[in-house]
């Protein structure tokens, strides 16, 4: 079978990376090794996707960066995380947000008993400008999410899934981030809404120069909107490359996009894939 070349080069040179994760290992509850040495780089102003199946370690990687692991009894016990030129491993989430790196959690996590507008305002918690400045920021967020403006006074718990996802992204935007760690924005949403949200991500990236690290199961969507992608399997990066290359990669097509060019494959070839993965890992 053909072996399309997978670029061995990193996404960017470390100098212009806004985020670089170097060989981190994460352990939950002191015994469960979840990440077994993950390295990745996000270029300044880029959109990078982190792909993989359930339990591959996508969310854990994001939480290790934003340091929300602590609350789940996970620890980063090896490696380094450099954000914007500063080693941020083990800084509090509060400090990371102030430095401009904010996470939008999987499953949206809006504050259900607060209105949409109050939700957005909590995103500005780390900012100490005057009211006028915050109000301006709010209008800016509404300009990206006109739907949220319509529903500004309804409780977030009563809004639709798509609106909640927009609310979560808008809330993160209120902190004026340099980078957003976006965890599965497509979860449980209709394809049309997913498209809408990815378009907004693209717009934010273009207009506001926000960099994105995007964890996704929707490989198709992620490969379409990101410029570079890493594929995680059981806590290791097994494949990475520019999305244009990955879209053409036979393995990615076969196992992540569900497109087969050669018809049915034999069991032996499946085994070959697995063996090769072990080598790469």
């Amino acid at each position, binding site marked *: 079978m053909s072996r399309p070349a997978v670029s061995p080069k990193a996404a960017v040179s470390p100098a212009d990376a806004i985020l670089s994760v170097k060989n981190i290992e994460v352990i939950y509850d002191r015994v469960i090794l979840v990440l077994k040495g993950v390295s990745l780089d996000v270029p300044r102003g880029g959109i990078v996707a982190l792909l993989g199946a359930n339990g591959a370690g996508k969310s854990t990687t994001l939480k290790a960066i*934003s340091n*929300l692991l602590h*609350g*789940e*009894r996970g620890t980063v016990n090896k490696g380094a995380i450099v954000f914007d030129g500063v080693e941020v491993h083990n800084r*509090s*989430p*509060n400090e*990371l*947000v*102030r430095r401009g790196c*904010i*996470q*939008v*959690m999987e499953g949206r*996590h*809006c*504050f*259900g*008993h*607060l209105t949409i507008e*109050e*939700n957005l*305002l*909590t*995103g500005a*918690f*780390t900012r100490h400008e005057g009211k006028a400045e915050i109000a301006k920021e709010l209008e800016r967020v509404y300009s990206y999410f006109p739907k949220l403006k319509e529903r500004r006074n309804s*409780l977030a*718990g*009563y809004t639709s*899934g798509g609106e909640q996802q927009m609310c979560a992204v808008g*809330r*993160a935007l209120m*902190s004026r981030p340099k980078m957003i760690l976006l965890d599965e924005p497509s979860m449980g949403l209709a394809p049309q809404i997913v498209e809408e949200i990815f378009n907004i991500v693209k717009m934010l990236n273009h207009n506001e120069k926000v960099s994105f690290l995007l964890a996704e199961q929707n490989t198709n969507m992620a490969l379409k909107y990101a410029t570079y992608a890493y594929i995680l399997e059981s806590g290791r990066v097994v494949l990475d490359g520019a999305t244009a290359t990955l879209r053409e990669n036979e393995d990615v097509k076969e196992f992540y996009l569900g497109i087969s060019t050669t018809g049915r494959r034999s069991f032996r070839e499946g085994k070959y894939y697995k063996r090769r993965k072990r080598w790469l890992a």
Partner: protein
Amino acid sequence: MDTLGPFLEILIGGLLSGVLYSLVALGFVLIFKASSVFNFAQGAMVLLAGLALVRSLDLLIGYGFPVWAAVVLALVFAGGVMALTAYFAERFVLGPLVNQDSLTLFMATIGLAFILLGAGQIIFGSDVYPLALYPTDAWILLESVFPGGILVNKLDIWGGVIAGLLVAGLAIFFQRTKIGRALRAVADDHSAAQSVGISIDWIWFVVWLASGLVALAAATVWGTKLGVQFSIVFLALKAFPVLIIGGFTSVPGAIVGGLLIGAGEKLAEAYLGPFIGGGIEYWFAYVVALLVLLVRPQGLFGERIIERI
């Protein structure tokens, strides 16, 4: 008119004594809202605040300070003690238990209650200390309408005024300020609050401090009524039915619940007491709470659980 006069007198007396339950319940609500911790130590905090206040007040007056200055200084001192308690509770008890089961946190507050009770009494003494911050004489109203008028205790009026101010202040704090909004956010979802950069340690400290200050306010009123003494802790138990009726997460609920319990138990004692031999005051609140639990578990004003389908 003959029966209306005593009825009103009992009703007003009951409502105002209910306000005192509300004062204790308020402290519970604050902490429960922000951390879903059921703070068993609230009663101990009232006692500690009262002891710190009354002992420092006596000392200052003993040194010859003018009364107003002594009262202000003693209040500041007691406030400081509550701040220290808040710091201690956050740093050493709740902080290390973040994201644990709420039952674990509840058990931790039971431990905290005993530490506060013990430490408070070792430091400040364990006698009954009289406190006279408010006038306690009776006030007779509407003498021209009802024979003998309606007798109201001035202290109860003060209690009502203080509770009203606290509720108004807390409502503004929660609804209008940035910290208040962050508090509600933390109450809703700890990890999401962390993810937007709200620092949970700081919020929990603020909330324990606020509930410590509410405990201090409660202690001034209870202390004037009964003297500052250990039995104040048991009065805090009456806050449980108040909370069940009003709802654990509602500030107005704590007030309305207190009023209902206060008025209900006094009226029941006066009008049902003669038929079943009295003593109703002691269990009435708990029976009402039980009924409310059966019919409306979130309480009258509790937050409805929002569930999307």
